[in-house]
C-alpha cells in the first residue's frame, strides 16, 4: 500500500542505488544469484566492472560503463543492446546465471 510517490520514489531517492541509472540492477543480481550481502555484492560488481564501489551509484560514470559494455542504459541509443540483448551481455560480463537468458538460448537453440 502507499502511493508510488511516497513509497517507491522516496525510498529510491533516500536509500536506493538508482536502478539502471547506476548499478542497482547488477548489485541486485549479485544478491539474487549469488546470495551475497550488500557489501559483498557491491564489491563483486565493482570488480567486474573495473570501477570503485562509490562509482556504482554515480549516473554519469555508470552511463558510460553501461554504454561501453552494452548492458542496458536509461536512454537507449539507436543500435545499443536493449532488453534481453543487454541481459545476455550482463550474464557474460558479470558472470551471472540469468534464468531468462538461459531459457532464450534453449528455445532458440543457441
Amino acid at each position, binding site marked *: *500500500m*502507499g*502511493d*508510488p*510517490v*511516497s*513509497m*517507491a*520514489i*522516496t*525510498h*529510491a*531517492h*533516500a*536509500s*536506493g*542505488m*538508482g*536502478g*539502471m*541509472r547506476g548499478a*542497482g*540492477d547488477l*548489485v*541486485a*543480481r549479485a*544478491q*539474487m*544469484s549469488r*546470495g*551475497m*550481502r*550488500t557489501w559483498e*555484492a557491491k564489491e563483486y560488481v565493482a570488480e567486474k566492472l573495473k570501477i570503485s*564501489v*562509490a562509482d556504482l*551509484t554515480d549516473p554519469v560514470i555508470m552511463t558510460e560503463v553501461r554504454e561501453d559494455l552494452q*548492458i*542496458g542504459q*536509461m536512454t537507449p541509443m539507436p543500435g545499443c543492446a*536493449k*532488453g*534481453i540483448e*543487454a*541481459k545476455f551481455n*550482463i550474464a557474460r560480463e558479470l558472470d551471472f*546465471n*540469468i*534464468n*531468462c537468458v538461459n*531459457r*532464450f538460448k534453449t528455445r532458440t537453440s543457441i
Partner: protein
Amino acid sequence: MSKIFTRYGDGTPVELSESELWEDMRAGTEDAADRANVPVLTDDDLKYMYDILASPYSFVSCERGKEVILTYDAGTLKIRRVGVNVDRIQALQVYEKIMGADTMELCHVDYSYKPIKPIITMEQPIMEQALLSTHIPLLYGAMPNLGLYSQPDGPFPNPAELLPMGQIKEARESLEMTVEEAVRDIVFTGSAMYESGADGINLDSVGAAGDADFLASLMACQKLKEKYPDICIQIGMAGEFILGMHGELEYDGVRLAGLYPQDQVVLAKKAGATIFGPVVNTNTTESTPWNLARAVTFMKACGEVAEIPIHPNMGMGVGAVPVNDHPPIDTVSRASAAMTSLCKLDGL
C-alpha cells in the same frame, strides 16, 4: 527551545520538544528490546537517529555509499491502484526507467497464489514478454494467504470460527490441511513462473494467517529450492511476530508461534530463501521517533544474525512508515535513511 516537527504513526503532524523526542526514542527501543529479547539501541545509534529526526529539511537521505537494493511487493498493482491506465509490462517499464527501481515484481490484482493457479497460463506469457523488453531482475509475487483455504472461501472448516467454540483440535486439523494445499499452490505457481524465465519468486505478507501461513511458505520455499537450485526466493513477512493460530506447528524442530524477526530469518535461510523481508508494524498512536527507534531495534538484531540478504519492509504501515495511503515524504525519507544507516541490511 524550538519544537521539532514530526508525526504520529497515522501521519498526523505533531511537534515535540527535544526531551520528548529523546523520551519517545528510548521508549520505542526499550519496547522492542523487551518484546524480542534483543539489545536496545546504543547511545550513538540514538544520537544518529535524533539528528535525522530533528533535521530541519523536508527530505533526508542515507550517507553516500550506504545505498541499498530496493525490492517491491505488489509491484505492478501500485500503478493501477492509483488509476493510471497502463498495462503491467508498461508498469514494469515505468518502475525501471522512471522510478529508479533496482528490481521489480510482476503480479496480479488478485494477489494470492491460490487464485493465480487457474489462470497461470495467462500470467506466464506476460512474464515472458516482459523479460524480453526489461533489464532489471523481475520477480513474480503473490501472498500465501491461507485465509483463502477455509470456509466460506475454501474447502476447510474455518479455524476462526472453531476456536471461539473451543474446538481447538478441529481448528488445528483444519490449519494443517490448509498448509498442504497452500504448499501445492505456491510450488505449482512458482514453478510455472520460474520456467517462464522469472528471476525469482516473492512470497509476500507471509504469516498473515499465523504460524500455518509461515510454515506453508517455508515448506514451499524448500520444495522450490530443491526443484530449482538457482531460483531466487524472497520471503516477505506480514508482521513482526508469528501469531500462534495453531500454536504447535514447527519447522526443523523450531516452534513457529511467537518468533520475532531475528529468529524468523534463521528458518528462512534453512528453507532456502535467498532474501528475507522482516517487518515491524507501525503503531498509529505513538510518534515517529517511538516507531522508528522500535523498528530499527528489531531490524538491527535481525541484520546481525542474518546469513542471507535482508530487505526490511518499509511500505505503508511498517518500518515506522505511517499508516496512511499517502505517507508523508518527510517521515518516509527519515525512516529510510535511519534504517539503512543504522542496520546491517541489504535492501528495503
